[in-house]
């Protein structure tokens, strides 16, 4: 089912959770709503589900206006962050719940319910826990039961709120892959909320990046990672080195130093932030070049094919600057440069992305 969100606004008291949000979720995709905590992504998910009503704007499900529709009529499957399994019911009864509460005319027979629940339990590979209570399950098992329960009502769309948030790292990874496989089998339109970029990049077909109640960027994981559209997107996705300064000719002036970049259209004197990924950052021995930002090597990790060098800003910390840098270079280069902890070097961006920074404040 396709979902269309049109000009949705939502405020809580004086806090603007959603600020004129419009977007389309195409049919059958697994979409990640990604953003820092408090950015409004969960609110957007709850507005789509009908658990929260927007102050203004419309929600269209399959082209039909559902704005005024009750959560009970929207036929969306919602998986809660802490699962919200009914603790006094067995796993079987939890999954059967949505079928049992249907009006008598639409309610399946006991036999059909049994068959359906069994099928769903097999789908989530937990047939053997049918008669247990939620408290007797592990976190990962609860998550899968919550998913089975949501699927039992044959929802037109599946909404998951931080589905892996409450799990430990190992289970999280397993479940991530499992969700992806399950989605490939079922092809039900799904939206999940996460603050973990790695999760979004790995699992989803499409990422919607949200910040301060607004959409920053929509695109495939690859697009988002490789061509971030905004300074926020750059800073939020993947590891990144950040340099703040003013444009001056073909350079970005950072304090007393300057970084070369290939002329985008900024006027001189404009405040900017320049980003470069660790694998696109170069280390140049101090004194060999006028170009680059000074730093001191702090640690060198891994001497294999790729080494990670951690550096700290040289001299006193300047205001509004990130003081830590991370560079990935071939292990051999560590040798040829003769890098060691404490050494002073200069950093340059091979591929520097520059964004205007009008208000001059932090982006992340």
């Amino acid at each position, binding site marked *: 089912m396709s979902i269309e969100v049109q000009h949705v606004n939502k405020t809580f008291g004086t806090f603007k959770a959603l600020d004129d949000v419009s977007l389309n979720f195409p049919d059958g995709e697994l979409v990640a709503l990604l953003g820092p905590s408090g950015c409004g992504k969960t609110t957007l998910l709850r507005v789509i589900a009908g658990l929260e009503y927007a102050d203004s704007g419309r929600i269209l499900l399959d082209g039909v206006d559902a704005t005024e529709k009750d959560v009970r009529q929207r036929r969306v499957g919602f998986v809660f962050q802490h699962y919200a399994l009914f603790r006094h*019911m067995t796993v079987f009864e939890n999954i059967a719940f*949505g079928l049992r509460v249907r009006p008598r005319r639409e309610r399946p027979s006991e036999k059909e319910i049994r068959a359906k629940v069994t099928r769903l339990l097999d789908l989530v590979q937990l047939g053997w826990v049918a008669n247990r209570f939620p408290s007797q399950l592990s976190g990962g098992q609860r998550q899968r039961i919550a998913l089975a329960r949501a699927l039992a009502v044959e929802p037109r769309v599946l909404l998951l709120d931080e589905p892996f948030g409450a799990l430990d790292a190992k289970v999280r990874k397993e479940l991530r892959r499992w969700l992806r496989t399950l989605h490939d089998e079922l092809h039900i339109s799904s939206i999940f909320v996460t603050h973990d970029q790695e999760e979004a990049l790995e699992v989803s077909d499409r990422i919607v990046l949200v910040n301060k109640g607004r959409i920053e960027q929509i695109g495939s994981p690859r697009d988002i990672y490789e061509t971030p559209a905004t300074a926020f997107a750059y800073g939020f996705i993947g590891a990144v080195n950040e340099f703040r300064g003013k444009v001056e000719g073909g350079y970005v002036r950072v304090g007393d130093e300057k970084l070369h970049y290939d002329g985008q259209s900024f006027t001189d004197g404009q405040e900017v932030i320049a980003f470069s990924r660790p694998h696109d950052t170069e280390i140049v021995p101090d004194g060999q070049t006028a170009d680059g930002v000074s730093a001191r090597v702090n640690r060198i990790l891994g001497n294999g094919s790729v080494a990670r060098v951690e550096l700290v800003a040289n001299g006193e910390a300047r205001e509004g600057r990130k003081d830590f840098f991370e560079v990935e270079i071939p292990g051999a280069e560590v040798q040829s440069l003769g890098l060691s902890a404490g050494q002073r070097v200069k950093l340059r961006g091979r591929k520097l992305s520059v964004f205007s920074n009008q208000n001059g404040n932090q982006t992340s």
Partner: protein
Amino acid sequence: MARTINKRVLPGFGLSLGFTLVYLSLIVLIPLSAVFFKTASMTPEQFWQAVASPRVVASYKLTFGASLLAAAINAVFGLLLAWGLTRYTFPGRKIVDALIDLPFALPTAVAGIALTAIYAKNGWIGSLLEPFGIQIAFGPPGVLVALTFIGLPFVVRTVQPILEDLETEYEEAAASLGANRWQAFQRVVFPALFPALLTGFALAFARAVGEYGSVIFIAGNIPMVSEITPLIIITKLEQFDYKGATAVASVMLVISFFLLLIVNGLQAWTARRTGRTV
């Protein structure tokens, strides 16, 4: 040697536990044990005569019957009140919430004479019921009214915190699965409240069984009709029948202990069911 093994970081264990045990024994345990020593000095026939005479048996029936009914009334209306106070905003809510505890704070004798004044034939409510031939004060219905009054806060105050702490997620999950409001209440919320409701019911019942002050003014105290068991004890004491009084008291004590065990069990159940301590 044991001392070095059991060395504790915080001081005062011996002193505080010692004082607790001595005080508990002097004020509660030793005096209570007197009931059983006194009872043990009676012959089985004497005991049976004291605790099973028709007048005493009639008082058990009234005391336990009215207490059970009062607790049941409070379970229903207490749940309604707890629901209204936690789920709805309405003018005067704070005042209602604050006054719910009045029966805990109002001396029982005051409650007794006030209820009598209202439910007597010429009282505010009694005069309304009089034309229909309904008499509340000075009979068994009066006992029920008094016991309902003193048990009122128990259910409200045990259910209310559970209802406040209940995550909205459960009702949201039920709604997203298509359940209507009544189904969500009946299948999801009520089972979560049930242990607390039962605890409140048991507390109200236990309190009502032992109640004396508020009842004696409104009951009329007619032997075989509206005489409660605690009054039987007082009457026997006034006739210097210490043994008889003690025998009846021992019956009430055993029942109190039994109820206390049930309440404790229920509270443990509530805690397990809801993951919180009561």
